[in-house]
């Protein structure tokens, strides 16, 4: 028993030894495992020894990987642990807000440096034309500088969903100031952030995940952010709503609004809290500017009436089509024509921006006539069906005759023998 037991023990020990060595065998120096946490990095040097929070934030940024060091912005010496020595050699310490744009521009306006990254170099010039830049130049340090939107140390690329300037984060980034209730009250500006969150654009962006939905910068510009002037509003909105703009310019409102200094699209749709378009608003919008009973005031309700009568006809046509589908009859063509009518209706709403009832009627009448045509055609087909159903009378007649003959045969009995 003993030698055997000894043999088993040896085996077990050998196995345990192998298992203990296994992790060592797998531990490769650069085997794809996450980089070991280093306190001293090329980007931050020895600064991170005393400023760990800033170091960690900075390491997230692409800057940390592109030859930008702590010393690039703050000066000083990152090779020493001696505080006095580290904070010498052109050390600037905290960069003042007014100095930030120029400091960033020292690299970002340098075409030679930015070329490899395919980055713009005109941000600084644009910034100086923006409302922010103009006020900063006047010594107003409450306005936004580069770091307010991009972050100070943790500057991420625009394509990074965690970045402050990713589409879904832009409203909140701007809203840091423009949604700050204290700040907007002090400075007598609109709470644009609050309004924007109620808008159809915000709904598209946040609820539908549509990254192409407009954010603050889509209308106001990025680095040259400024509110569009009266007269430019239609151009800004028209960048996406092209057909509406074309109709608007063709109509009398464009010139009239410019004359009276009325902001075009905003006058009816609002600015930041733009609501989904509701047809019924056609009937109630005119009275906002025009006097009640005025011939202009009545144009809206007229267009609305035209539109609604077309909608009614289309709804009726759809009902008749559903009836035909129940039979079933061939209705593919009618379904296609309903779609056509719907397209006319959509175009009618676009044309309504020209405030010319006759133009709108051109579309609504077409839609309406499609609806009535479908109804007429299907009702004729139903009529034809009823006519063929009446053929049952002929059938009944022949059945009656046959039954009569059968009765006579039954009563007469077998044929008389000759």
């Amino acid at each position, binding site marked *: 028993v003993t030698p055997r037991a000894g043999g088993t023990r040896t085996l077990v020990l050998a196995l345990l030894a192998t298992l203990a060595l296994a992790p060592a065998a797998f531990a490769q120096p650069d085997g794809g495992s996450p980089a070991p946490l280093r306190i001293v990095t090329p980007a931050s040097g020895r600064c991170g020894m005393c400023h760990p929070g800033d170091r960690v934030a900075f390491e997230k940024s692409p800057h940390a990987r592109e030859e930008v060091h702590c010393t690039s912005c703050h000066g000083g010496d990152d090779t020493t642990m001696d505080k006095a020595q580290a904070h010498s050699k052109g050390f600037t310490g905290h960069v003042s807000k007014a100095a930030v744009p120029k400091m960033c521009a020292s690299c970002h306006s340098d075409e030679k440096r930015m070329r490899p990254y395919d980055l713009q170099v005109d941000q600084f010039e644009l910034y100086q034309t923006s409302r922010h830049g103009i006020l900063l130049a006047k010594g107003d340090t409450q306005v936004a500088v580069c770091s307010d939107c991009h972050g100070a140390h943790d500057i991420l690329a625009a394509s990074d969903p965690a970045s402050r300037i990713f589409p879904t984060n832009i409203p909140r980034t701007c809203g840091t100031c423009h949604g700050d209730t204290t700040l907007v009250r002090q400075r007598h500006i609109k709470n644009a952030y609050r309004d924007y969150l109620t808008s159809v654009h915000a709904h598209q962006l946040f609820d539908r995940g549509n990254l192409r939905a407009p954010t603050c910068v889509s209308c106001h510009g990025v680095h040259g952010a400024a509110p569009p002037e009266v007269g430019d509003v239609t151009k800004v909105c028209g960048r996406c709503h092209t057909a509406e703009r074309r109709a608007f310019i063709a109509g009398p409102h464009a010139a009239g609004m410019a004359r009276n200094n009325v902001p075009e699209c905003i006058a009816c749709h609002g600015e930041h809290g733009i609501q989904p378009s509701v047809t019924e608003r056609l009937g109630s919008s005119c009275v906002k500017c025009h006097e009640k009973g005025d011939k202009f005031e009545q144009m809206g309700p007229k267009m609305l009436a035209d539109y609604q009568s077309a909608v009614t006809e289309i709804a009726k046509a759809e009902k008749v089509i559903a009836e035909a589908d129940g*039979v*079933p009859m061939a209705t593919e063509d009618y379904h296609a024509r309903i779609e056509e009518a719907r397209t006319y209706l959509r175009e009618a709403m676009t044309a309504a921006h020209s405030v010319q009832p006759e133009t709108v009627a051109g579309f609504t009448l077409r839609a309406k006539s499609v609806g009535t045509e479908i109804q007429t055609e299907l009702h004729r087909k139903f009529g034809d069906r009823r006519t063929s159903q009446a053929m*049952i009378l002929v059938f009944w007649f022949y*059945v009656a005759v046959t*039954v009569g003959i059968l009765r006579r045969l*039954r009563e007469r009995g*077998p044929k008389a023998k000759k």
Partner: protein
Amino acid sequence: MSATPQDPHRGPGSATPLRWAIVEWLEKRINVTELFSLLTHFGLVYTPVDTRRPLREVMREIGETPLVSYARWPHVLGLLAALLFGLEAFTGILLAFYYHPTAEAAYDSTAGIVRDVPAGWFIHQMHVWGAYLLVAVVLLRVARLFWDRLYHAPREVLWVSGMLLGFLVLQLDFTGRLLPWDVKSYWAAVRGLEVVWSLPVIGPILSFLVGGRIINDDVLLRFYVLHIVVLPALYLGAIWFTFATMRRIGLSQATERGVATTTFRKHIIDLVTITLALFTGLVTLATLVPFRFHGPADPYTTPAGTRPPWYMLAAYALLQNVPGPAFLVGTVLLVVALALVFLPMWSARHHEAVDDKRLRQVGIAFAALWLVLTVVGQLTGGHK
């Protein structure tokens, strides 16, 4: 069965009409009477046929056989059921030429039959209306057998076969309903299967046989095979069995209500008249009150107010409104169904005619309860 080989009224030399000349020409070559005698298996001829004799003599003899007057309403039910089954088989075969039993194509192919195939709408509507009438007629026939106490010896077998026909015709209706894959038919099948699943023992077995509790492509195919092959074959067998037994035992009227006689010739004419009346009624219904389509079924959206087929409404009402687990209600349903089959026979054997009157009262009470529950099911049916 007379053994006389010759017709006494007509000598071999007398002039024969052309149709008989053809028959005589044929008879020299094949046994036409033998072929004709096949009909006796399906109830058209009630007397045995001597296949050794020429057809003409056989026909004459049959034509003048005194017969219980057949075309009276209680007897007509069985006849109508047989005729309607023939109609369903004929129209069903025509429909099967165009129908595709897959979830994707079922609705479109059915709608295509009605819309695009020449006279397809007529065949389809006749099939649907015929099915409604067939179910009604077969169930009425069961009620009639019960009411006229036709479960006494020696008619117990006919009573059981009547119940079997009723059961099969409901299965045929239920499986056929799903085939168009229409919104309404689909959800009627779903609700109907809820009733079936509540039955103890039978429910799980059926659920296993059709392939689960979810009505999908596989279930559709299985229903299709059941509807066009298995159930019709069983039904045909049950019809044959009923007629064979009927020939042995005789029609009920001859034994119960005195003999109202007619000749076979008149009977055939009555039969043709009834067939014609039935066909006329069906054509009228199919033309003037056609069934409508409601769009293809979507298993992911349940429309409001879905109910099982009408004959399951009473059971469904119980399931919906009686608290407690479904299998308790299912047990009650199963016991009632089994009692329906065996109680009359059991009562007839043990208590003779004394309890028949009471049994009728029980039947009326049961029918009334069933009607009330059906109405309740119709009114309260909807989302579960």
